[in-house]
């Protein structure tokens, strides 16, 4: 059997639930239209420059045609000097403008690409915190890396090159019509084959290339994981399986390579035959016309040479067209972020006071499944409340509701009498901050890492904040001080130092209420104890809701709430709960011995 069927396994198929929307065709179209409008001038300029370049490129065939005509007629005066001078002039113009075309194309492409990636990040950082908590950052991350990467080629090359190619073909055909209309008609003889072949190809190609590149990325990803997990792989004796996995990925990838190779094995002959058919039909039809005396030899020569020139722009269009189709999918994913409504909140809603109140709150992530049921709670200003309970009981969810990240399905959560879920995110965070185990240290200077909490802070304030969390010791020892580059690629900070930076940010942001979700859980116990002393200083005077996973945190709290199965089962101070001899008391005894 001739032909290759597409492989059954598609590495580009999504495996995890898409949590963020993908742009609808209308949204994508509107975005593209806007992008074009923004760069209309640059587009028009590119086309103008390109027109000059193509027209001057046709001077050669035209002038040679004239010479051929006169030589074959045996004319006495050839005006060779003048012709060659024209030739040289046209060549100079062509060279200059070809350079301009490449350059203008790149400038335009780079502008559009820069617009696109900056737009996307602007949108991303405006996403509501609730959407981020729910969706995680993985999907967003793959959009800003993989999809921007794919679009880069399309914007940088495909869009300008296609614009150039289309104009180029049109002008060459126009040149043929001007030289001799019958020759232009001869070109059309080759058209049906090209159209049929390309339709067949472009229906299959974009998806196949997407799968192929996903397959190749999977080969590299498998190896990267083996390397990253070196110790685990060795400890569990997974070496042979990892080699096997890598080879399976290679098999999957090459199966797609084989399929796309088959697609091209159909497309290539079509293009080749088209090119030669164009040239041959021009020569044969034109030749017959010349023999009949309807056309001059010079016209035929010019026509044949122009037909030969069609190879380049046609190749250009075919080369970049599928890139554009692949880019469409990526664009839809990027533009999709625009479809998420930024939760505007009600600017009029402002808290009056600092007490936090939850009133008969119900909440669930999925419809019909409530994670929290009828939870009521009151936290007076300056109180320390500890939430304890088994994993999955709903402590973290309750913490996020109290921090205003999610809105309750039923019931109300208020801060100073104002409903948290109706305030803009920017206002909520000036009052309440959620501190979780994610101690992200951003790529950049130590200063940038602190400034984000209070952009107008001066260095003295930054040092004071570092001092407040016991971090000024190591920070002062840094050779470049606040200018030291940290984060991935920069100075590697220990988890404890990263945690201290997170705490210093809190000192700078200065919210009066903090929700701590296992803030020190990823640290080794000794560092955690050291940090808790810094933490104590930061917490001083603030209202604190601590999701406690170490019992001594609970021990220090004013109030302990035991969360079990979506409800608060025990509530009281340490002493009261130990005396009550319930679940908490049992746990405490085994902890403290």
């Amino acid at each position, binding site marked *: 059997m001739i032909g290759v069927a597409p492989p059954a396994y598609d590495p580009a198929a999504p495996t995890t639930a898409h949590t963020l929307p993908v742009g609808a065709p209308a949204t994508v179209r509107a975005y593209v239209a806007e992008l074009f409008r923004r760069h209309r001038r640059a587009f028009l300029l590119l086309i103008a420059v390109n027109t000059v370049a193509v027209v001057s490129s046709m001077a050669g065939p035209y002038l040679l045609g004239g010479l051929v005509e006169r030589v074959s007629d045996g004319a006495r005066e050839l005006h060779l000097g003048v012709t060659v001078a024209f030739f040289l002039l046209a*060549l100079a113009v062509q060279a200059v403008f070809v350079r301009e075309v490449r350059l203008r194309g790149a400038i335009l492409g780079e502008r559009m690409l820069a617009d696109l990636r900056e737009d996307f990040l602007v949108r991303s950082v405006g996403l509501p915190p609730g959407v981020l908590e729910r969706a995680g950052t993985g999907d967003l991350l793959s959009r800003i890396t993989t999809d921007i990467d794919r679009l880069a080629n399309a914007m940088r090359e495909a869009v300008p090159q296609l614009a150039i190619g289309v104009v180029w073909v049109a002008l060459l055909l126009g040149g043929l019509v001007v030289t001799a209309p019958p020759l232009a008609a001869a070109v059309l003889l080759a058209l049906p084959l090209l159209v049929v072949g390309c339709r067949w190809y472009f229906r299959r190609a974009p998806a196949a290339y997407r799968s192929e590149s996903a397959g190749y990325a999977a080969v590299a990803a498998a190896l990267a994981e083996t390397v990253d997990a070196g110790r685990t792989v060795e*400890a*569990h004796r997974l070496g042979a399986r990892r080699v096997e996995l890598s080879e399976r990925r290679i098999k999957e990838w090459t199966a797609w390579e084989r399929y796309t190779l088959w697609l091209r094995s159909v497309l290539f002959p079509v293009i080749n035959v088209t090119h030669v058919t164009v040239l041959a039909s021009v*020569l044969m039809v034109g030749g017959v016309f010349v023999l009949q005396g309807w056309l001059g030899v010079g016209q035929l020569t010019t026509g*044949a040479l122009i037909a030969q020139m069609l190879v380049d722009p046609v190749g250009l269009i075919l080369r970049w067209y599928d890139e554009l189709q692949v880019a469409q999918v990526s664009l839809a994913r990027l533009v999709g972020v625009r479809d998420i409504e930024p939760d505007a909140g009600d600017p009029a809603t402002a808290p009056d006071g600092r007490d936090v109140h939850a009133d008969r709150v119900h909440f669930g992530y999925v419809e019909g499944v409530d994670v929290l049921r009828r939870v009521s709670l009151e936290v007076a200003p300056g109180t320390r409340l500890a939430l304890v309970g088994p994993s999955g009981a709903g402590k973290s969810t309750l913490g996020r509701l109290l921090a205003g990240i999610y809105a309750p399905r039923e019931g109300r959560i208020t801060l100073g009498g104002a409903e948290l879920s109706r305030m803009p995110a920017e206002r909520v965070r000036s009052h309440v901050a959620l501190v979780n185990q994610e101690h992200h240290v951003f790529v950049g200077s130590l200063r940038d890492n602190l400034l984000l909490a209070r952009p107008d802070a001066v260095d003295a304030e930054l040092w004071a904040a570092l001092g407040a969390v016991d971090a000024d010791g190591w920070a002062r020892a840094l050779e470049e001080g606040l200018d030291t580059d940290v984060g991935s690629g920069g100075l590697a900070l220990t988890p404890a130092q990263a945690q201290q930076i997170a705490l210093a940010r809190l000192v700078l942001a200065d919210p009066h209420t903090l929700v701590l979700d296992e803030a020190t859980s990823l640290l080794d116990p000794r560092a955690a104890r050291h940090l808790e002393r810094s933490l104590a200083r930061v917490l001083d005077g603030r209202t604190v809701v601590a999701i406690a996973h170490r019992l001594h945190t609970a021990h220090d709290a004013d109030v302990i709430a035991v969360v079990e199965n979506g409800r608060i089962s025990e509530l009281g101070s340490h002493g009261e709960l130990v005396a009550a001899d319930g679940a908490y008391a049992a746990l405490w005894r085994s902890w403290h011995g």
Partner: protein
Amino acid sequence: MQIQHLPYPDPGVPDARSGPRFLWWLGRNQLRGQLVSLAWGLLHFGSVSTLPFCVGFAVQAVVERSGARLALAGGLMALACVGNAVGDTFLHRAAVTNWITAAARVQQLLARKATQLGSALTRRVAAGEVVAVSTGDVEKIGWFVEAVSRFTAAAVTIVLVCIGLVVYQPALGVVVAVGLPVLAVAVLPLLPRATRRADFQREKAGYATELASDTVAGLRVLRGIGGEELFLARYRRASQEVRHAAVRSARMWSLISAIQVLLPGLLLIAVVWYGVQLARQGRITVGELVTVYSSVMILTYPLRHFEEIAMAYSFSRPSAKRAARVLSLERFMDAEGADGGSLGGAGEDARAGSREATHAGSREATRVGELPSGDLYDPATGLLAPSGRLTAVVCGDPDAAGRLAERLGGHPSEKGTSVLLGGVPLDELPLDRARAAVLVQDKDPVLLSGSLRELLDVPASGKVRAEAALAAAQCEDVLAALVQGSLDADDPMDARITERGRSLSGGQRQRLALARSLITDPEVLVLDEPTSAVDSHTEARIAEGLRELRAGRTTVVFTSSPLLLDRADRVVLVHEGEVAAVGVHRELVHKEPRYRAVVTRETEEEAALSGVLNEFDVDELDELDELDEIEETA
């Protein structure tokens, strides 16, 4: 090698002595493919080069008013058309096949090397380099290896056409034959600069991507505390820098394009100028003039291969060098003499068998199929983990605990006295067998991506079912979270775990890793802080589950959590690299202040006290050092 037969059953042993040798080795191993590509390339380029002759022939036929010869020209074109289409398609197929087989071979070599290096990778800078070779260098290496035969075909064609033109029309042919080589090499001097600019642009783009993904990765922090504008402004700056670098790079490439138009154009003009005069003198026909002109136009196509091969080589040379370096890494470069580990790396189970024989001499317990068993004893610290019992180790310094845990598994990165399992030194066992006898789960076990079933499918005794291990590690809520996060999995075993389990919380990851270790069910299981990110409620249940599941097996847990310590048969306090106390939790908590300091929360006074003690220790040490120095100088 055809694509459908990939991967190679055995990718072979590469010549990794240097970059060029590695390229040569790759090319030599696909000699057949190279020859096939060369043959089709000659057909393709040859057919393309006959087109100008056809054009000239047709024009001449028309000039001479000969319909028959015009038809003959048409027939010749049809032939050229077939040769061109077949040649181009099969050249492309051969070239792509060469590229893919070379790339697949390198990827296979890398995968084998990575598993052979195993834990040595994470300790070394090499980790990043292996990945860099796989993601970036393989493509460039494949490109050059493949381009060689294509370039050869193009070069041979150009030489043949020049010879042909000189024979066919000596006067004009000479002009072309002199001009073409100039065209071929004209832009080469500009290429290094252009590629440097392109590299710079890529570097800038890489930085911008890093900033963007870093911002997104920390987005929850940003949204929670502010600073979005600061980071946007920073990204905009980086993004604009990329744009400037790209435009700068485009300036160079556009100059190259202009030269590629200008030089062939000048040659064309020379051909026209000289050719028209010859035609007028009747020395050549009009058809011949058109042929030569058309040839120059068409030959710019094979000529581009000179540029391509120059670029491919300049790109692939550093890539090949890096690949060769990575492929020549050994597990322990600094080890004195041959080390069992450096030969029988993990992942070579199949071949390890034959090698084991050479190591088996020393102890009877290393007989094939039988692993040593008994008490685990570390002579360096005096730590003893009795066979079949649950031993908890408390160590004030987490780094020291990590090193001790690593040593307990044998073949550690720092050589020293070997740990003994049932009297057998683990370091003297082949690596794979030592790992089979003792499983050390380090502080940061990595969850490999894939379905949960794949994650838990590890070499194991087969006596512990996945359900039992998951239950012991308290994974119910993890399973629920996994099902919720996956697209179409109702069975949690089909749910997918993302890379490093990033979609799960720290505590969830720890519990899954623990379940995986429990399924393995090794003779000795060493766990380093297995529940540090798990809440107390769950930790208490895990302690119970662990105890039940490992009943009768040797287990060592490094921890400072009273909930785990309370369930251990035996608790050992390691202080300053030596066993300081042995007992059970309740007893040690009351009797041993140093133990209490690590395990329970220190009060301020205690902290102050231990601070004083530490200072005292340091002073004493300094004095000792001084004494040493005095002794040495004396």
